């Protein structure tokens, strides 16, 4: 490949999800950014901290809320080649959850490790 044909160097994007899936629109609109952003061929990671881990919880039932359960959409991330999904280990433990309770495979990391992951990013979008 000629030098000129090289794709531009990708930036490292980290989407940080800190809020529960319902109650506010942040989680849903964060996922919309992630899916649109996937078209830009950047180096994308997702992080789920605190109550944000509930976004990935299996068995979400939103009928009584009369809002759409968008949790199945996380399963599409793999189709967009987004596979670096980090979940804060302490947040899972504090909520009685394990990786087996989540809708997609994730890498559970300590809060300490999460800070290192953040340190290595170019762009961090926090929702």
């Amino acid at each position, binding site marked *: 490949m000629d030098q000129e044909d090289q794709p531009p160097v990708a930036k490292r*994007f980290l989407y940080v999800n800190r809020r529960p899936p319902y109650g506010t629109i*942040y989680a849903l*609109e964060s996922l919309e*950014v992630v899916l*649109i952003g996937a078209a*830009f061929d950047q180096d994308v990671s997702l992080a789920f901290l605190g109550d944000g881990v509930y976004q990935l919880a299996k068995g979400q039932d939103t009928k009584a809320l009369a809002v759409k359960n968008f949790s199945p959409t996380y399963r599409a991330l793999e189709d967009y080649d987004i596979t670096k999904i980090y979940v804060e280990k302490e947040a899972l433990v504090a909520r009685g959850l394990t990786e087996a309770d989540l809708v997609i495979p994730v890498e559970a990391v300590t809060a300490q490790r999460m800070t290192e992951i953040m340190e290595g990013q*170019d*762009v961090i*979008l926090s*929702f």
Partner: protein
Amino acid sequence: MKFGLLVSEGPYTHQASDSAYQFAKAALAKGHEIYRVFFYHDGVNNGTRLTVPPQDDRNIVNRWSELAAQHKLDLVVCVAAAQRRGVMDAAEAKRNGKDADNIAPGFRISGLGQLIEAGIQSDRLVVFGG
């Protein structure tokens, strides 16, 4: 330095838009470049010209429009977030069968790709609110 800004909260309820405005003004005064200001979530409400704040208060929307006119700022309102919240330009209003539009001068409606692109093109993407 080239900055991209993300404003993710609406005017008056939250300080995010005020802080972003002050940041943009200060950065421009120091000779930095503002590549784009992107408005998302309730932040899209910063782009309606129909706000009428009390006269002894700051006018957040007009302030953005004036800064945009002075410095040729690119103020972009997310189309998907704007549609949910009723922020429209004339073309969007027509396309969606609405009887009015409300976009403020200096703002334009576009897609989320503009936020990602701002992240790619800017040296720093600074997030206000969220």
